[in-house]
């Protein structure tokens, strides 16, 4: 397992160095179990206690990274990433290299990096807390997917199905093409990034 250095934005707007790991280790899973999971559970209980309607709850509350890591550990088609900053796990991403190909006419049938799941720690999320600790975890991980796509010879092409609450991020922040709801996949909106969009996305400073 190897790490590289990336930068997140701290609460004061300053860049903070973070470690990007090219796999999700048992230690990362333990961090998720010990720090993310209890916080998510407390948040879920608060939503329940406050009587917040289920459709307004964050749609990824049930994601279990321990299960996802276990199920994909030995499968070459999956690549897993963990982002650590100040000794704490800040983000996780699971991508697949073989199950999806391009849907946009310009890249129809060509391989791409399909982002199965991407998460940021509860303390970085504005839907969980008033003052997120770090900004840019999602953008950094999307850039990682683009770089992986390039390294694999896929020219920066990536694709994903988005939960409705995250659509704005992929549409505005990542400037991906919205191909509309996919009736073959829970009616989730499918987004794709072309080589040209990837070049633009990675050459510009991260958007908030």
């Amino acid at each position, binding site marked *: 397992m*190897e790490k*590289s250095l990336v930068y997140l934005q701290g609460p004061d707007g300053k860049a903070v160095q973070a470690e990007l790991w*090219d796999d999700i280790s048992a230690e990362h899973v333990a961090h998720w179990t010990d720090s993310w999971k209890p916080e998510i559970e407390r948040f879920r209980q608060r939503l329940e206690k406050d009587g917040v309607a289920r459709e307004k709850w964050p749609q990824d509350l049930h994601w279990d990274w321990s299960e996802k890591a276990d199920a994909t550990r*030995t*499968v*070459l*088609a999956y690549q897993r990433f963990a982002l650590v900053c100040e000794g704490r796990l800040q983000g996780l991403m699971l991508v697949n*290299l*073989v*199950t999806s190909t391009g849907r946009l006419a310009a890249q129809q*049938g*060509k*391989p791409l990096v399909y982002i199965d799941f991407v998460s940021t720690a509860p303390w970085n999320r504005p839907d969980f807390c008033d003052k997120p600790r770090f900004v840019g975890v999602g953008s950094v991980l999307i850039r990682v997917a683009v770089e992986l796509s390039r*390294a*694999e*010879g*896929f*020219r920066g092409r990536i694709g994903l199905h988005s939960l409705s609450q995250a659509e704005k991020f992929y549409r505005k922040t990542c400037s991906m093409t919205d191909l509309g709801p996919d009736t073959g996949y829970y009616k989730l909106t499918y987004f794709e990034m072309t080589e040209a969009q990837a070049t633009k996305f990675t050459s510009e400073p991260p958007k908030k």
Partner: protein
Amino acid sequence: MTNKRTMTLNLSDAEMSALEVLAEKKDLNKTVVIRQALRLYQMVDQRMREGKKLFIEDELTKDKSELMFI
């Protein structure tokens, strides 16, 4: 990021031709096509060992046929 090791691959003319066609069609180099094939084969093999089946569906007729792997 991961260290890579080199191997020699012996292919027949037909296999090399198929590899070249796939590489051209998928806009990949031949090494990546082979790597993709291995990833796919391993994933399918694992799913089948878990008791799952692989089907091919005709987009128009919706007819499904099971794909048998050795």
